[in-house]
């Protein structure tokens, strides 16, 4: 029996608990035991990206401490993978922490050890478990937006596409200019709202061009942003996390 630790991310925890539930359901169906440390919060990316490294530090330290604590079912010698339903947070923990603790001899080894255990959800399913067909069903057309940090930060693209390709009932169509940023960028969307709005509008018109009622993402940040834009513009399209599609039967 494989056991993984789930890092749910603060956006899933606060806004999209259904994504977290879907992740748990998928993993359990695959015979993977999921552990969730209740005291996890935010990985610190918002502060790190904004340049506020002093306040990102304690957030990262907290996250490392929480994720270093092995589930009780495991022996101390065992290694437990960490699954994160967000390429962005995975990117932060895997790569950002190395940068954040680069000249901290106490924390750097701990950050490196943690980095080696981190998997984005679809990466874990496809590359680690070798599964591309989850027996999922989703009726209708969908299109996939590859989030920047998932695509370019983590280099993950074929995994979510392979998983979607095996969803029964779903017709997957290409999103034009899919690789373009939706304009979220964390605090960027608040700091530079005009720029953010331009990209959001472009993303929405590209989505409309597909005539797909559903946009699938693997990152809750993009979901928050695009769904917020769609709602503001009174558009009917919905944004869902890929975990919710894969959990649907």
């Amino acid at each position, binding site marked *: 029996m494989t056991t993984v630790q789930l890092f*749910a991310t603060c956006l*899933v925890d*606060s*806004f*999209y*608990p259904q994504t*977290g*539930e879907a992740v*748990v359901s998928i993993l*359990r169906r695959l*015979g993977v035991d999921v552990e969730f440390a*209740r*005291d*996890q*919060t935010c990985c*610190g990316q*918002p*502060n790190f*990206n*904004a*340049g*506020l490294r*002093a306040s*990102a530090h*304690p957030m990262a*330290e*907290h996250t490392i401490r929480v994720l270093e604590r092995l589930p009780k079912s495991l022996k101390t010698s065992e290694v437990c993978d960490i699954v994160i339903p967000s390429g962005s947070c995975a990117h932060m923990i895997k790569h950002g922490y190395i*940068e954040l603790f680069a000249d901290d001899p106490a924390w750097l080894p701990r950050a490196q050890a943690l980095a080696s255990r981190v998997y984005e959800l679809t990466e874990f399913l*496809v590359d680690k*478990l070798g*599964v*591309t*067909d989850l*027996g999922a069903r989703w009726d209708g057309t969908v299109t996939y937006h590859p989030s*920047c*940090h998932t*695509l*370019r*930060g983590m280099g993950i693209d*074929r995994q979510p596409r*392979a998983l979607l390709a*095996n969803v029964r009932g779903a017709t997957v169509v290409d999103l034009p200019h899919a690789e*373009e*940023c939706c304009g979220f*960028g*964390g*605090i*960027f*969307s608040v*700091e*530079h*709202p*005009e*720029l953010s709005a331009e990209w959001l*509008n472009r993303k929405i018109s590209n989505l409309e061009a597909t005539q797909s009622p559903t946009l699938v993402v693997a990152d809750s940040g993009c979901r*928050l*942003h695009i*769904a*917020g834009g769609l*709602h503001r513009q009174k558009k009917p399209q919905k944004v869902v996390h890929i975990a919710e599609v894969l959990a649907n039967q």
Partner: protein
Amino acid sequence: MNSHQFRARIRKSLSNEALQAALDANAERRVTGRITAFASLPDWRERRQQARAVRAEVIERLEEYLERFIKNAAQNGMIVHRAANADEAIKIFLEITGVQRRFGAPLLIAKSKSMVSEEINLNHVLEAQGMRVVETDLGEYIVQLRGERPSHIITPAVHLRRHEVGQLFHEKLGVPYTDDIPTMTHTARKVLREVFLTADVGVSGVNFGIAETGGICIVTNEGNGRMVTTLPPVHIALMGMERLVRTLDELALMLSLLPRSATGQKLSAYTQIIQQPLPGQQRHILLLDNGRSRLRNSLLRESLYCIRCGACLNACPVFREIGGHAYESVYPGPIGSVISAGLFGSEFAPLAQASSLCGACKEACPVDIDLPKLLTRVRAGKIPANNDRLSASRGGAGLTPLSKFFLEIYSRLATHPRLFALSQKFAWLGTFLLSPFRAQVRLPAFTGWGYSKDLPRFARRTFRDYWEGSRLNAGKVRVADLQVGNEKHQPLFVNKSTRRTFDDGVEQFIEEWTRVGGRVIRTSKDKVTDKVVEFLQTKGIRHIHLEPNVLDEDVLQKAGIAISRERDSEIRVGVTRALCGLADTGSVLEADGEGGKLLASLLPELHLTILNVSEIYPSLQDALPLTRSTKSAVFITGPSRTGDIEMSHTIGVHGPGEVIVFLAV
């Protein structure tokens, strides 16, 4: 520029309809050109990492390689200067030009593209000294006439549409208004030809210095770079001190990436390798530090790997929206947001906040500079200050106080899990009270978020709340029961290259040369002169600039064709022999020599070159050693061209508009 001013400039750019139209018009082409060009380089991923390693090594031991470069360049007869900062550079420049001062008329300086000259504000200073400075790159010429700065490091006038250029030429040059790009290009050709022929000093930038040979490489498309380095009695090359490679092989590697990244070409129209002054000419190389040593010793060191291709500007969604001027720095875009703060100081730090860290810049970078990481370093205040000390400035430069306050609070909450959970409840209650009937909250525009999107209410029951219950109803299936995928990663580009035979090389040369706009006339070795005469007669040409010992001159005389060996504005055709051809890029190599042969391939409208099939090399790397024995050599890849107005490809700017290879079998 503080962050408030920067935000104002962003808003101004977004509401500038003409600018938006100009940027939108070629936004896609700026990216697709590069991607298509890389498709012809099957091993580009390896090359990119090799190029990065080369740049890293050069920057690591920069002083050592600089010394080697300077020693070799001096041995070649170049006069090398080092300037610590802009003031010193200007002083050296004025000392060089001071000797050239002429009476009665202002000194005329013809410039080809140089970002370093922008960095030290050269034009302004020289003009204040009473000199006449003329930018000769079409895009630079346009922005100079408008009294502006370039808005892009490769395509300086990318912010303008053709009718604006037409209007500008009409007003400033007194020509009838037109929005026909070839006509405007021709106007610039005529005006600037006079400048090239009469300039006292030619100024150019440098793409690469080569440490092992002491030579410099300059890459251009229009031919102005060749003009200013060939015609005036003095040539001053301005070079950022970090722009070195060690060997010609490394140069070949860089040149397989630079033009593809910059303009989507396999090789630019003119790739010059300059090693020595021409007879009667003085050549100076001015190496500029201006903060680079400090940058090298800072956490932004990686930014010195940059080869100034501009690909990150083209890939950047911010640049796409606001263009280059909004950055108010010589260097805009992602790399500009790093090096402006790195070279010029913390007042440029707010530029780095205008990025979603989407990583499109890193992906486009031919030397894989981790620009998102460097941007976060600038944001964190990790920049070298102007006073030689690592800046002690606090992080978050350019953030609004509200964002800063929110993030500091958020950090406190995130490190106290119970408080965090409690705040989620308050956040739910808050958003519920703001929007009791709808799941999305409409926030006011001043919050930033509310400017263009709604916010979902916080979840009443967080994932944390769900967790305990979900443990109980877990249905379990074994992994082995499910179909296991065997997807393999598909490479984006398939390596099609196989070993090529000699004949393949000839065919490939013809194909590539034709593709870049050149023409091929096949002939046999003993029929070359006859074939050229036949060609000239059908065109009615009776006077050519001919390199010695290339054609049977008795035959030419009998055919009534006069021969010149010197520059003559009336001559429309130049005839030379190419040292070699390159199969993979469709290029021919020409070099200096007797009878003004370098000019024969540059000044006339039509250039004929004789190439033996046995002189066709597979690629640039194989042919670069031939340049060692030349003073000044140039790989010519098709006719002179420009894309400076609306990125519309236009043939025949300063160099020949037509080039024909007489391929002798």
